[in-house]
């Protein structure tokens, strides 16, 4: 369970205030909102990449509001994938396990498992330069999932892809979320993508979470 309570984030004149929402365990949450509404700011605050001025963030009962990013156990896929330019795909995926002290055997097994699930086995010994947009995003996804995070944060991972690649990756995201049993918070502008993937939907408007629609119950709350 991911719980955000009364979160306050300030960035110059822009402010996210009184942000409160909850994501049930293993849910696929979709966060939508207009450009500049603060979606990425909120996601980065949850990941620990941006300081928060108030409120609390909880994951599985742990208060992670002030925890450094490394201790949050959150996988993060930015919009541009931000792969490490000097590392081959294999090393990219094993990086999170390497710095967390996983054994070589564990790393190797996990990389093979993720590469197989995400269909990137063929490109494991390639550098990011030259990979297609879809391949880059699958590598970034594998990298973020490698250490079995408690939450996976995706910042518009499909926005720069063509329709076919987007469609394939949408199915892959759904499949991988279920096989990995990971809770997902996914930012998107695409309503169709949100409807296909989401089990929980949020909308961020004018620095506040305006509406929460739960698909299962049909509840509609305004925060």
């Amino acid at each position, binding site marked *: 369970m991911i719980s955000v309570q009364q979160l306050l984030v*300030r*960035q*110059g004149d822009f402010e996210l205030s009184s942000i409160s929402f909850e994501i049930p365990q293993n849910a696929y949450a979709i966060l939508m909102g207009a450009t500049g509404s603060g979606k990425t700011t909120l996601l*980065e605050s949850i*990941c*620990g*990449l*941006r*300081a*928060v*001025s108030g409120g609390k963030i909880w994951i599985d009962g742990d208060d992670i509001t002030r925890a*450094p*990013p*490394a201790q*949050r156990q*959150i*996988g*993060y896929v*930015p919009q*541009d994938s*931000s*792969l*490490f*330019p*000097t*590392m081959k795909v294999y090393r990219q995926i094993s*990086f*999170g396990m390497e*710095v*967390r002290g996983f054994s070589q055997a564990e790393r190797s097994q996990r990389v093979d498992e993720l590469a197989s699930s995400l269909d990137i086995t063929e490109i494991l010994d390639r550098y990011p330069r030259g990979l297609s947009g879809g391949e880059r995003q699958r590598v970034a996804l594998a*990298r*973020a999932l*490698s*250490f079995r995070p408690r939450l996976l944060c995706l910042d518009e991972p499909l926005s720069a892809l063509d329709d076919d690649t987007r469609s394939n990756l949408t199915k892959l995201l759904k499949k991988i979320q279920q096989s990995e049993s990971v809770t997902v918070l996914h930012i998107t502008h695409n309503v169709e993508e949100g409807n296909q993937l989401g089990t929980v939907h949020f909308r961020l408007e004018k620095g506040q979470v305006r509406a929460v629609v739960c698909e299962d119950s049909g509840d509609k709350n305004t925060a």
Partner: protein
Amino acid sequence: MSVFGVFYLALIIALLVADFRFANWSDMSSLLSDPRVQFSIWLSLISCTIAAILSLWVAIPTGFLLARLGSESMAQRRGLQSPGSRRLFNCVRYSIDTLLDIPIVLPPLVVGISLLVLFQTPAGRWLDERTGELFASLGYAGIRGITYEIPAVILAQFTVAAAFAIRTMRNTFEQIDDRPERVALTLGASHYQAFSMVALPQAWRGIVAAFTLAWARSLGEFGPILIFAGTARMKTEVLSTTVYLNFQFGNLRGAVSASLILVTLAIVVLILTRLLTLGGNSKNGVIV
């Protein structure tokens, strides 16, 4: 290329041609066979290399910190949301930046005098004496301290060269996107791991450039060495002081020949750098 650019290029070529025409091979060979000049060449090569390595040692972490302290993401991570805190943060950053650039803008003689004065203070004298004792214990009794000894040559070169190396490394890291480092933090990396495993490998061309610049700058250093290390032959004489000493004693041909050795070394280093960094781009490439 503008007309002025062509003029400047012609000026550089004319200078080199004039030097080569003025000196002849017999001057050069007699200079190279002089043990004092051989000593100055070796001391130049060794001291410049040590000064360049020391400069890199300082420049890599300092350049990285300056580049990242100036980035928007650092301000966000540190929670510098209010205009006041950002102004204070920027003020401190600019002050450090300016201080580090001082050796670049100071007249070289002033750097030398400042070093000399520094080593006249109690702390400087203490360090001078301890350095002499250290070298004596290592079996180099000839080096009795820092001032007017070989360590003074290296320190004088390092003081100026490090400032150039820091500026180069700061520019390099500023051009490297910091988002992969931020992702590395979420993957479990410490700040040091994000730096050493993600940022540093991308900066290798900048490191080569910084090393070359520091080395070349050290090779051409004269003023601070003259004041702080002196021009004692077979002791603290480097190539730039060889040029000076020959000129001082009216041996213009010797001075030009020694200058040509400096020019040749500088050209070799520049060509090597170009070859090593061939294929670079502005994103990860050589700066300056």
